């Protein structure tokens, strides 16, 4: 039940992303190209998502617990630190170069397109490199 529910939620998410055009790099890049072939569609994706998720979260988080688990898993930190800002800036720069973001690329994997597979492979490599970098820095800091 639990896994079937997760599968269907993933399917719903992926279908929404594909219908919205978030998995189409030409559309994504045009959203950011105000000085060129601007296509404001993606503003409607975030608008539509928040239109549902804002009241949805309010309703759900007011309940004592989720259906299948003992509690909600929410990030407890509210700190705005350097990793958050520099990491997000780096993500944005890469997004503007490749045209895919992770949430757009994962559903697009199902089309079997080579470009998507290449993006996801490079994305995973970048993620692993970042994890390695952080553990290296932490080891150095502990040694110092």
């Amino acid at each position, binding site marked *: 039940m639990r*896994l079937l*529910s*997760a*599968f269907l*939620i993933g*399917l*719903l*998410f*992926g*279908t*929404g992303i*594909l*219908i*919205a*055009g978030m998995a*189409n*790099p030409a559309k994504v890049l045009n959203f950011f*190209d105000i000085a060129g*072939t601007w296509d404001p*569609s993606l503003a*409607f*994706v975030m608008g539509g*998502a*928040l*239109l*549902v*998720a804002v009241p*949805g*979260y309010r309703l759900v988080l007011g309940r004592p617990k*989720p*259906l299948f688990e003992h509690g909600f898993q929410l*990030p407890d930190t*509210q700190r*705005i630190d350097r990793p958050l*800002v520099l*990491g*997000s*800036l*780096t993500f*944005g*720069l*890469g997004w*503007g*170069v*490749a*045209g*895919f973001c*992770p*949430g757009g690329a*994962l*559903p*697009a994997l*199902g*089309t079997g*397109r080579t470009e998507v597979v*290449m*993006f996801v*492979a*490079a994305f995973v490599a970048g*993620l692993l490199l970042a994890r390695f970098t952080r553990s290296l820095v932490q080891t150095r800091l502990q040694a110092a």
Partner: protein
Amino acid sequence: MITEFTPLTSALGGMLVGLAATLLMALHGRIFGATGIVGGLLRPGDRNDWTLRAALLAGMVAAPTLLLVLTGQMPQIQVPVSTPAILIGGAVVGFGVFFGGGCTSGHGICGNARFSRRSITATLTFMAGAFLSVYVMRHLIGA
């Protein structure tokens, strides 16, 4: 490459994404973040967590097939950039989201939906980054 302005289908797709995020919180108590799903799959820890992420990913990957069955065609994916741009951009995205703690789904939708200061900051920052790099790639370098 010019793309058609699609306010209705984009808003409809967005609403489905928002519904998926709400359902994942209601049923499983979790933020829907693509970064978190992939990151968790790469670090096998709690078996229940791992299988849940794998099921989410399987559902996402099945979406194009569902659309093919429903509409008779695969979703449109047009890639106007070179292979090196995909590979370098992909690695930079992976590196950035690890430190930024999320991407368009985790911060952009789930975090913003509960008015998290961190997510609002992250969203404004990665949008600014993308505007900047598209401007540089298309209008300064002229790729």
